[in-house]
């Protein structure tokens, strides 16, 4: 059974089809990348899965349980953690407090949640900055904070929305290493939206390509990058 099973997912805004009949699955412990040009409907897809938006049609199942159209906090309860492409830190809280809010999802006591949050911050190399206010972080650090906060809820499935955008290649490699280690240690499943192909190639076992809200290709990273349809959507018609 797949960890995440998306069937015929559709969403329109004012008649414009942002996501159109998208079907895919993410196997347990898998790392799957969702790629596509700007405006392909990737983030909308995330919002539909994570409950920030309700789909017009289709279904979302997490480990067999139907979570279609549930509110975001219920989706989190079901076991999905997510990051936001446009980062949404709790500005007036410190880095540690930000992650503690996430950790409280599985911990009853604040002290235990704080310890867990501190551990996750160390893992994401934010330990030194734990007493800084989130508002004062640099953008790459805020992206890492997003990951830390989502991880702190101990999700079965992690949705990462462009967490490597704006990072230097060495920083990208470090995050890739962190995510790989995480999967090895905890068996977490990851679905990520990413433009940084270096990360996509290194991390994912499977790639799904969206274009104009529709799935146009999927397969191993090697296979997808050679698919003429994919090249065409990125480079325009006639490029192949």
């Amino acid at each position, binding site marked *: 059974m797949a960890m995440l099973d998306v069937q015929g997912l559709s969403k329109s805004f004012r008649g414009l089809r942002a996501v159109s009949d998208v079907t895919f699955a993410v196997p347990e412990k898998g790392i799957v990348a969702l790629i596509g040009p700007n405006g392909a409907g990737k983030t909308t897809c995330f919002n539909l899965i994570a409950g920030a938006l309700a789909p017009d049609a289709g279904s979302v199942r997490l480990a067999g349980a139907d979570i279609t159209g549930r509110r*975001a*906090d219920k989706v989190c309860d079901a076991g999905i953690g997510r990051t*936001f492409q446009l980062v*949404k830190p709790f500005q007036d*809280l410190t880095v540690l407090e930000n992650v503690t809010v*996430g950790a*409280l999802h599985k911990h009853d006591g*604040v002290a235990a949640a704080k310890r867990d949050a501190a551990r996750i911050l160390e893992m994401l190399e934010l330990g030194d900055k734990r*007493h800084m206010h989130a508002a004062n972080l640099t953008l790459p650090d805020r992206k890492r904070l997003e990951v830390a906060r*989502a991880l702190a809820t101990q999700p079965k499935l992690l949705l990462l929305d462009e967490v490597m955008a704006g990072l230097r290649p060495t920083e990208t490699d470090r995050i890739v290493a962190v995510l790989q280690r995480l999967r090895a240690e905890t068996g977490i499943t990851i679905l990520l939206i990413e433009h940084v192909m270096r990360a996509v190639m290194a991390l994912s076992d499977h790639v799904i390509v969206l274009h104009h809200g529709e799935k146009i290709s999927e397969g191993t990273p090697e296979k997808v990058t050679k698919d003429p349809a994919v090249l065409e959507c990125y480079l325009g018609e006639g490029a192949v």
Partner: protein
Amino acid sequence: MNDLTPFGRAALLAFAALLLAVPWIASGYVLSVSIICLYLAYMGQAWNLMLGFAGLLSIGHALFVGLGAYTSGYLFTKLGVPPAVGVVAAVAVAMAMGSIIGYLGFRFAIGGVYFALLTIAFSEFVRILLDHAKFLGGTEGMFLPVSQESRRGVDLVNLRGSTEMYYYVILALAAGAFLMCRALLNGRVGYYWRAIRDNPEAAEAVGVDIFRFRMYAVLLSSGMAGVAGVFYAFYYNNLFPEQVLGIERSIEVTLAPIVGGVGTLFGPIFGAFILTPMGELLTEAVEGFKQSGLIAKNVKTDGVKLMFWGLAVALIVLLKPKGLWPWVCERLRLVKPPGQRG
């Protein structure tokens, strides 16, 4: 306490000792001003719980105070129920009102300043209803019976006694509110409130039921205001809708936390102890000027005080939007920097 520097700890203890000693060292006038300070500190704490902790702006807290006051006053005058029992009903009524406003506001997604408008609208609506409620005295007012001998001694069940008793009652309430808010802020609910305040969408994504936690904030805050209403009713012994529920009353309770620091624990207390004495001094000065003929006799002293309050709020928002208390803390090194805390 753990976050305080040794000097900060000493200052806090000195302040607490001073508060306990006020009835022994101060005159009747200073005592009654102190009661107003503590009352505003208590109400400021209740209001701040909503805006400062959970990000919900209310300009209708006089409504909850008024409901608490009228409920306990009615039960006492008409049915002989003592306030020690009546307070339960007072809190229940205030919370019921709070839950109506909260439910409508959050279910219909009335955000930001429009939530504030909703609280104003409810408050004013109920005020006019009370004007017409003959069984509660209407515009003629409701009067709680009080006798000369009941102004001596201590009767906590009937909330009757000397000014000193009222002082200690409101001191206990203010201290209790402070300690409760401190415990809440450092607990799970406090983390969730602040998360919702800073970013509701992100809070929801980490599993926070924002509707539920916002309701908690409104219920707690309105309940606290209901208790204040009982104190108000039995301290002043007369209730007029205009005076208890007027919009100026709702604005009045916002002043101390704004000046002290929205979202801080000690800000409402600090603000109340700065603003109230200054308002009183100003009132005295204006009265003095009137006597000596420097300003016209027909000038409304109250108006001058209100002008000062408005100016204080405007200046604070312009110059120190985080309030005076964080600034004082930093200047006097009352609190350890975050890195050195336990």
